[in-house]
């Protein structure tokens, strides 16, 4: 079992019970009065059979409140997810807190801070670093969206899943665009791992067919699902944060209802990527305080439902560099989400939005995760930790604690020692080349890349199965016309290599 962090104190609450109830009532009201658009015939039929008000022409589905509440009750409050190595199995819920990474389209040059497409090696390097870091408990879909050199758009994430499976034993996620989960789910199965199905909502109040199909695949393969909502408050959701919680909840519910109708007791976590809108340029306002207010309220409401939550907005910032702004824009949402009961925090490796990510950032994030994780575990109050006998024994100055057995045992238990932080005194710092945390993280990255090995590597037959599925996927998209002849010519050269 992957070692998460256990939160040992009651979670932070920001709402009164009446306010939670008002948000819940509001959600049911929107689902009953306005409902959602569902562009998927199969799902429309399932909803109809379950008693929803379905208009097959306009694709509008309205949900009776009783059905929504019944399906919420069927969601397990905690569940396990199987990895290919039992050391990486996941326990989600039960106050266990896990971490994973946030994606980027590009890597970034650490000297000029210019973004650029990663090479295949850089893509693999990020996967290997994430595999090596102890507090990364599983891997997101696309650490990077593909790599440079001519892989067709539709194949980028399928190739990406193959790279993750080959270079990491940790569980990963199957995104649903263009049916690619039809292939990636089978890849995970081939190596004896589960993979998260990943339906994404579309704001406001719309369910597109690929995302709905992900629920059918989850039911067919009996997979856990992570449902994502990424509304922008002020843009695709109300600017008022309570209204944004109502809207995101109303967008998540149709997927919960569908998943529970298809397979009662289906394992579900809901991921919150709701971000305020930057009203100067329309981009999401990553890392700002509205992110945390929404996360904390969302967590409180979903704790009432007994459905584990994922705080996806912890990772991305608005900074283009690894700097002071990035530090606070990552730490504040991560800490506040962790305190308010998130089961999963999506923190690692991202720099700016969904654009840039880097293994050095992932190493720095490992310290944030370690610190917050340590905080969650709280402090023990026992005869031994109160240390009354010891305090009486040491007495006033010149007594001290440094040489005591109690100190040797307890300091390591109580302190978290960051791996990449500059913790030196001035003279030590001057003598060792005036390094910063970024320098230390770069050194650790080199060390990981030269020593880390995936445990266990794939067997010959697993390798062959992955290759076979890749081949099928290429043929499928060639036939569908999603890989053009010109694309195929350059892609073929990469495959042959």
């Amino acid at each position, binding site marked *: 079992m992957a070692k998460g962090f256990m939160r040992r104190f009651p979670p932070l609450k920001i709402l009164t019970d009446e306010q939670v109830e008002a948000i819940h009532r509001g959600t049911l009201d929107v689902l009953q009065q306005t409902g959602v658009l569902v562009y998927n015939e199969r799902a429309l039929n399932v909803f109809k059979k379950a008693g929803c008000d379905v208009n097959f022409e306009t694709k509008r589905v309205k949900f009776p409140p009783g059905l929504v509440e019944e399906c919420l009750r069927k969601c397990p409050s905690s569940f396990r997810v199987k990895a290919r190595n039992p050391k990486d199995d996941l326990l989600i819920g039960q106050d266990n807190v896990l971490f994973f990474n946030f994606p980027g389209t590009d890597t970034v040059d650490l000297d000029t801070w210019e973004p650029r497409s990663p090479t295949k090696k850089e893509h693999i390097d990020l996967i290997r670093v994430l595999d090596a870091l102890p507090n990364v408990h599983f891997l997101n879909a696309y650490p990077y969206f593909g790599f440079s050199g001519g892989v067709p758009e539709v194949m980028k994430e399928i190739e990406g899943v193959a790279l993750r499976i080959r270079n990491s034993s940790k569980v990963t996620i199957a995104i649903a*665009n263009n049916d690619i989960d039809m292939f990636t789910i089978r890849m995970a199965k081939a190596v004896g791992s589960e993979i998260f199905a990943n339906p994404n909502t579309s704001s406001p109040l719309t369910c597109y067919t690929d995302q709905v199909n992900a629920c059918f695949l989850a039911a067919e393969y009996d997979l856990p699902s992570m449902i994502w909502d990424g509304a922008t408050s002020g*843009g695709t959701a109300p*600017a008022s944060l309570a209204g944004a919680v109502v809207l995101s909840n109303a967008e998540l519910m149709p997927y919960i209802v569908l998943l529970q109708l298809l397979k009662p007791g289906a394992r579900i976590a809901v991921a919150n990527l709701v971000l305020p809108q930057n009203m100067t340029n*329309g981009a999401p306002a990553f890392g700002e305080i509205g992110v945390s207010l929404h996360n904390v309220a969302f967590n409180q409401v979903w704790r009432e439902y007994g459905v584990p939550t994922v705080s996806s907005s912890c990772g991305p910032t608005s900074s283009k560099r690894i700097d002071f702004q990035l530090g606070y824009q990552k730490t504040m949402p991560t800490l506040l989400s962790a305190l308010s009961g998130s089961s999963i925090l999506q923190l690692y490796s991202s720099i700016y939005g969904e654009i840039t990510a880097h293994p050095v950032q992932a190493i720095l994030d490992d310290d944030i995760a370690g610190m917050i994780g340590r905080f969650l575990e709280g402090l023990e109050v026992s005869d031994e930790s109160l240390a009354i006998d010891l305090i009486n024994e040491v007495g006033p100055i010149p007594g001290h604690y440094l040489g005591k057995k109690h100190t040797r045992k307890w300091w390591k238990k109580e302190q978290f020692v960051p791996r990449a932080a500059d913790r030196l005194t001035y003279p030590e710092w001057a003598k060792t080349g005036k390094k910063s945390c970024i320098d230390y993280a770069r050194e650790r990255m080199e060390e990981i890349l030269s020593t880390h090995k995936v445990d266990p590597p794939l067997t010959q037959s697993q390798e062959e199965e992955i290759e076979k599925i890749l081949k099928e996927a290429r043929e499928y998209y060639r036939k569908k016309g999603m890989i053009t002849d010109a694309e195929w010519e350059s892609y073929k050269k990469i495959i042959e290599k």
Partner: protein
Amino acid sequence: MDTEIIEGLKKAIKEYDTEKAANLAKRAVEEKLDPLKVLNAMTVAIREVGDAFGRGDLWLPDLVGAADALQAAMPIIEEEIKRTGAKRESLGTVVAGTVFGDIHSIGKTMVCTLLTAEGFKVHDLGVNIKAEQFVEAIDKYNADILAMSALMTMTAPEQKKVIERLKKEGLRDKVKIMVGGGAITEDFAREIGADGYDPTAPGAVKLARKLIGK
């Protein structure tokens, strides 16, 4: 009376009042005001909003609110210009839209609003626009500029399809093409054969002027 309607229309745009803007535009037509004078007043109002946005005094919801009010009045006045055969002066005609498969509208709306404020005649086709719709509109409006937006890496290649379609129809050289959106880079713009790219809305206005030499 004339001044009251015109000043009221300007105020409606600056106060984001869609209904009032449409009603005043209708009254302007009823009262037989010079539609060119009305249009000019509307352009002045939206320019004031655009300038305030540029200075950071107003925010995106204000800009979009004013654009909506402008859009509510514009077709009524344009219809009147057409009916009376008045000669409208503009910097040039722009056809704009977000490409097929992509429903992101904010960046595109910002650019359209600021282009209108600058004095361009803008035909905003909306979002999820197919190549043939762009081509048809360029032909119909005799556009000087095509402005396309795409926010996602999956939809960016759609811009290339539009350009290829224009070539096929023999319209490519009649129109200057500018592209933008979250997924677009300078290199990508060059690669697909666009005439220009800018990452910001005010930059897009400068680019539009440059492209048509004004």
